[in-house]
């Protein structure tokens, strides 16, 4: 038996004879990676590691985790018209998917009707087009909203889509307090990284806290926000930035809700998170663990939350779209599998696995199925879900978890000194940091310091041409016709009344949710509702 010093000496001698692949190894967040991790950094005591389901939840938020129930397999889907997407939803549910996740097209996400000139070319492209309640009724036709949980990637007009969901449930005879799901409703990351903002920060924060207040009372099973690091990472951030910016944004929402007079233990249990499952396997696992620990501490120590549920960070993961390659797209299946495995080892509550063809187009039915199968294989065949936090206690994982926490805290302190996340966004601070990291990554690829198989190494002369999903342009026509028809059939005076009541409420301080629900019920379109709010709130430039 030799000691540590002796071993390091021997290893150094060996390196002198046979140099290692790189002079220095680092994670995406520039954390140096040691040759080997030794017990010294982890004492193995229970105090150090903690237990699953116990504060600070480093090892997971449940005492049984996947031994009780697998994560929710929730594939983001939506394209073309409501009819078309309804078919894809039913297909995915038949194939064993356990939750729905709606992708809306850009006009819907930015509050324009399909017939608005701004919508040119975008209708039904990146998701389903929703103009009025009518489309939403068709979208969930034959799907009982008390049987399924639905996540909706909708931010600036989140209240409008939530209102539509509530009214559709009501029409199906499902009580409001029974509906389950999530609205993304995270406007800060839209300014930072995703771009589907409408209103300036202040009224946007009000819309969000209105939702918090309304849902706490009426839809207790609905997650009122999904605070997202996903898009921050897609825009090019490091793992540490993803962690720090997401948690800083979360604190801004908590601050806004407290300022609006809400009780922390009433709204905090419905805050959800959304992270990226990226390439660096161990760093990702450590990131999820660090996120849980950091959030628990913030909620307990900074905000004085008392309920366990307020301190538990629940998160959805989507694997990294930006790592998919257009070249040799089949290779993406392997990337997705490894990224998804890291998310599972990190204890995600739900998971979206990307389809192999998404660097080129929206997924076909076949590629969407393979994506779903990938996580089913992880769940049922690998055994990784049979014990909780299987990598807990790994010298490397525990060290990395600590390091990510520490580095993210440094960033968060910087954001605090800048006046919090809202101020930092307005100063473009996070945007600049992310851009710098993105450019750095690009340069590393071009210098071949980072290798992407099929792109800067092992390229093919001739690329295979996969069959891609095409959104039929006829769908746009049909969508415009439907909107026309709805507008003819509804009672105009009711719509006008509802919109002017909404306008008045927006000018005042009342909770806007009941007014938006009323307008939606009268078949006011998303464009009409958002234009009413634009008139009062203005637009973010």
């Amino acid at each position, binding site marked *: 038996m030799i000691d540590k010093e002796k071993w390091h000496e021997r290893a150094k001698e060996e390196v002198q004879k046979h140099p290692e692949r790189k002079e220095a190894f680092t994670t995406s967040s520039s954390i140096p990676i040691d040759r080997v991790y030794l017990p010294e950094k982890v004492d193995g005591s229970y105090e150090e590691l903690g237990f699953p389901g116990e504060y600070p939840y480093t090892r997971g938020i449940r005492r049984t985790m996947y031994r009780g129930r697998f994560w929710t397999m929730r594939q983001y889907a939506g394209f073309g018209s409501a009819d078309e997407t309804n078919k894809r939803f039913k297909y995915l549910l038949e194939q064993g998917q356990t939750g729905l996740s709606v992708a809306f097209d850009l006009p819907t996400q*930015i509050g324009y009707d399909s017939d608005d000139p*701004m919508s*040119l*070319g975008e209708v039904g492209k990146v998701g389903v087009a929703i103009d009025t309640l009518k489309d939403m009724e068709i979208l969930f036709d034959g799907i009982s909203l008390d049987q399924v949980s639905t996540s909706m990637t909708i931010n600036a007009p989140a209240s409008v889509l939530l209102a539509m969901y509530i009214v559709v449930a009501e029409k199906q005879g499902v009580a409001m307090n029974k509906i389950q799901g999530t609205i993304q409703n995270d406007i800060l990351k839209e300014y930072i990284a995703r771009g589907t903002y409408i209103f300036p920060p202040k009224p946007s924060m009000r819309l969000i806290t209105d939702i918090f207040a309304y849902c706490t009372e009426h839809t207790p099973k609905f997650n009122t926000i999904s605070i997202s690091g996903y898009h921050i990472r897609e825009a090019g951030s490091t793992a540490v930035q993803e962690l720090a910016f997401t948690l800083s944004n979360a604190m801004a929402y908590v601050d806004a809700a407290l300022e609006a007079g809400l009780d922390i233990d009433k709204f905090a249990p419905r805050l959800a998170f959304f992270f990226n499952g990226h390439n660096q396997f161990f760093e990702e696992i450590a990131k999820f663990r660090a996120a849980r620990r950091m959030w628990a501490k913030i909620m307990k120590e900074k905000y004085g939350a008392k309920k366990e549920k307020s301190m538990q960070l629940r998160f959805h993961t989507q694997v990294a779209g930006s790592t998919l390659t*257009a070249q040799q797209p089949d290779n993406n299946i392997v990337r997705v599998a490894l990224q998804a495995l890291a998310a599972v080892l990190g204890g995600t509550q739900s998971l979206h696995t990307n389809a192999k063809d998404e660097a080129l187009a929206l997924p076909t039915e076949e590629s969407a199925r393979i994506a779903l199968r990938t996580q089913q294989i992880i769940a049922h065949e690998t055994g990784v879900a049979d014990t909780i936090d299987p990598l807990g206690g790994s010298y490397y994982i525990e060290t990395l978890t600590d390091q990510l926490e520490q580095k993210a805290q440094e960033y968060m302190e910087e954001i605090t000194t800048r006046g919090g996340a809202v101020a930092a966004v307005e100063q473009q601070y996070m945007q600049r940091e992310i851009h710098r990291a993105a450019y750095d990554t*690009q340069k590393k690829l071009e210098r071949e310091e980072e290798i992407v198989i099929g792109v*800067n190494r092992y390229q093919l002369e001739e690329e295979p041409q996969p069959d891609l999903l095409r959104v039929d342009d006829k769908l746009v026509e049909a969508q415009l016709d439907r909107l026309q028809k709805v507008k003819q059939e509804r009672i105009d005076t009711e719509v006008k009344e509802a919109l002017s009541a909404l306008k008045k409420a927006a000018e005042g301080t009342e909770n806007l949710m009941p007014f938006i629900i009323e307008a939606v019920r009268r078949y006011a379109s998303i464009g009409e509702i958002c234009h009413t709010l634009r008139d009062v709130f203005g637009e973010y430039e």
Partner: protein
Amino acid sequence: MDKIRVLIAKPGLDGHDRGALVISQALRDAGMEVIYTGLRQSPKQIVRAAIQEDVDAIGLSSLSGAHNVLFPEVLRLLKEQQAEDILVFGGGVIPMEDAQELEKKGIQKIFTPGTSTITIAAYIEKAVMEGRGKDTGILEPPKGIDHIGIAVRSIEGTLPFYLNHLHLEVEKIVEVPDQQVKVAFLPLGNSKLELLEPLTRDSPVAKFIDKKGEGLHHIAFSVSSLQDRLNQLKREGVTLIDDVPKNGAGGYPIAFLHPKSADGVLVELCEVKDAERTDND
């Protein structure tokens, strides 16, 4: 050489600007001037900005699948504004089939994901340079020497040499007040000599004589398409004295290039219409 100017634009509602920002910075690092429009630009806004900013090329980025509608619309509007000399290239989530279709419609090039920024910068530079050449056509070299200018203190004092010994004749003597110079024209084959006598102490010719003494002052080439040629020279990095042609003593448009561009020789370009030339011939 004038810097290449590029407008990077996000048409439509797509908010993914990682690619647009990375390309913007990479082109800047490659020495180009880059204007980034920001998100949510209509084709109309993009074309207006491109013309206002006098760019050589527009880079369109779309990841939302709207490329088949929005990219051709930019081309159509450029044509409508007679600005189709502005090159348009694109990138984003664009299937190969669509890329080929768009290139057929007049998009210079669609860069697919994974293309290195170095490749993109090199491609744009080459395409713009070729475009600039095509713009004006490769202009023909000067057709001949229109005249040679000689600075003299006094025409009267110098003329006897040319008249009595070389037996040339004086065609005319004129005063050009805005140059503060008196000019004697002595035809010589297809060309002529110009004797330049300063009218005042501040005249450019007076200063020339003060500095360098009497003697050869400038050489003038006869060229066609003077304004286009000046534009081209400017783009190629030649320093001009006159950006736009002015009326010369001979009654036709002329412009001077700066002597530092020709290692000390003052070069004048004269636009002489072919018809007039033939008359003289």
